[in-house]
């Protein structure tokens, strides 16, 4: 058994930018978020919000600046970073041969949670998102909104000190957006740091402790 450092959810991105050849995806941007905070990244399409989230999560190397989580360089090759950061950025590839509850049990188990209560945790999470009745469906049997809720459930089913979300409100109706807002608030209340890209003013109003405006390159 390897020992992995538990990192505090202090997110720091200092002047991080990303360019590929002559194309600038993200202008140098600063982000700072502490445990219990929800920092919202706001900006028009193409301004680089997703790129910024990928850099903070250690999935992408910045061209300029640096990003850290709990004082360590954000690099997902570092097991401590992987253990600290849960993220919904893009579409996670799901198992076409597992039902929703199977997915949650699998993720929960691989993080070493108590196997005796794994099913209960999975069902409770689905219940919280209002899709408990779909627990025995396969991912291809969901509508686009249900799929988004399932992706959120997958992301929230693993432990983390930093939660990165890329437009969690996508494809959700007003009621479900409120449900998701409640769950995100619950995570920050529990001490997690949330950094999320968002276009919904109501959600930003309800959750943001700080807003970072991401300026498009052009």
């Amino acid at each position, binding site marked *: 058994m390897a020992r992995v450092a538990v990192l505090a959810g202090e997110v720091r991105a200092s002047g991080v930018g990303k360019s590929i050849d002559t194309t600038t995806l993200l202008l140098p941007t600063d982000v700072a978020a502490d445990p219990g905070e929800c920092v919202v990244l706001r900006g028009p399409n193409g301004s680089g919000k997703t790129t910024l989230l990928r850099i903070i999560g250690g*999935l992408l190397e910045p061209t300029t600046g640096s990003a850290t989580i709990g004082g360590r360089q954000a690099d997902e090759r570092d097991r401590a970073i992987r253990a600290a950061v849960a993220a919904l950025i893009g579409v996670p590839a799901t198992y076409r041969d597992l039902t929703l*509850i*199977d997915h949650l049990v699998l993720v929960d188990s691989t993080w*070493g949670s108590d196997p005796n209560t794994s099913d209960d945790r999975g069902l409770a999470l689905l219940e919280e998102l209002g899709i408990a009745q779909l627990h025995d469906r396969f991912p291809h049997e969901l509508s686009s909104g249900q799929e988004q809720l399932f992706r959120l459930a997958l992301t929230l089913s693993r432990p983390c000190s930093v939660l990165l979300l890329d437009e969690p409100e996508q494809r959700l109706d007003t009621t479900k957006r409120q449900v998701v807002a409640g769950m995100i608030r619950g995570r920050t209340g529990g001490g997690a740091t949330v950094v999320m890209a968002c276009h919904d003013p109501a959600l930003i109003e309800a959750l943001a402790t700080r807003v970072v405006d991401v300026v498009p390159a052009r």
Partner: protein
Amino acid sequence: MTQDPSAELEVDDAEWLGQADWVVGGEAARQARKQGLYAGYVLLLFSGIYGFPVLQAIFRTNDRGWLREQLDSPIGVAALVVAIGAVLGAAYWAGRFRGPVVPPLPWIDLVVSTPVDRARAVRRWWRYAVVGGAFVGGVVGLVVGSGLAFAQVTGVVAMVVATVLGVVVGVVGARVWLWAQVRSWPGPDHATTGPSLLWRLPDALRALHAESLRAHSANTSTLAGSAITGNLRTARLSLTRPITHARAVRLRAGRPFAVLVRRDVLGLRRQRVDLVAGAGFTVLGAAVLIWGMAQPAAPSFALGLAMVPLYLGFGSWTEGLRLQADNIGTPALIGTGPLTEAAAHLVAPTGLAAVVLGLAGGFAPAVWAAGLPVLALLAGGHLLAAFRGDPPATMVTPQSRLFWYAMPSVTVVLVGAFLAQAYRTGNPAPEAFCTILVAAVAAWGVSRVRRLTYRHRT
């Protein structure tokens, strides 16, 4: 403008198609013909340069008398029938998602959807397919027949017989391919899409639904795009049917490694086609391996041949491993490290293959001895296959890309043949060398896991 319901519309198929050809299809059709001719030329060239000499070498380095006896025996006839059945089965399987009649999308939208006789509107693409099938079948027959004849295993007449047989199989295969395409459309008219369409060609072409043609055209683009971009998941998903079986069975929670293994076992319970296909391939591979290792007269190429179904069988059971590779570059959901996860995903396929090879060891002790290195080789080969990643940017030609995709299977077949031959002779020195080779393949696979897992970041 409205039409008078009592009036009839006169459709001159030839004229309409001629005009359509002039406007949307002519240049594309000429291009398709040119490409087809070029592909035929390349096939003929490669058959002459590689196919014929390789077969010659195989036939000449084996006991000709024994080969002659096998060709005349009921086993030889049965093997031929099984091979032809496999070709026709493959044609039917392929026709479910990519049939022989795949016109360009503008032709489907602008011509096929008009009142022109559909059999005439799509006939050109059918002709390409059937001529291609006959040509490929004929060339394969000619290469095999001439290989046998020049190696003096059979008389010269075998060349003619094999060529004719190849052409016939090619034509029948094309018809089965078309039949599967007709039946791929899930409409309510399956009663009219019975086997009689195999000989009622115009009716078969008329039974092709425009939506089905569109879907097959889209599948062609998906497959081609997946091959070019290296995104094999998209191709795989387009070839599989959605799973709905055994939804009430739950994944049992547990320790991280155990739950990953249980995931794969549950996946195989739900995808019984993969389970059965894997078992079928592995049993076939084990049977050929028993024959190749236990029969002194068996040709040495049988040992390499046995590796092909063994590789395919193992691959049918490694969905979990492939999905791990598909997920690379996305935020971590699974709590274990990449190597632990990959190792866990190899447990179920290795266990299943071990059962089959263990039973095979009861028939031939040499198989028992070679079982462990063969299993390690298969596991290493599938690590390579799942984590091979995109082809390097320098590989731009179709041949180099084909080589990239075939690299893991070719490695397994070559090393496996060498390994089985070493264990057949029972000589310790080659056995030790093979152990090093297998370890190298496994290490190569592990290095691909590491490389692909971490490379994406930059």
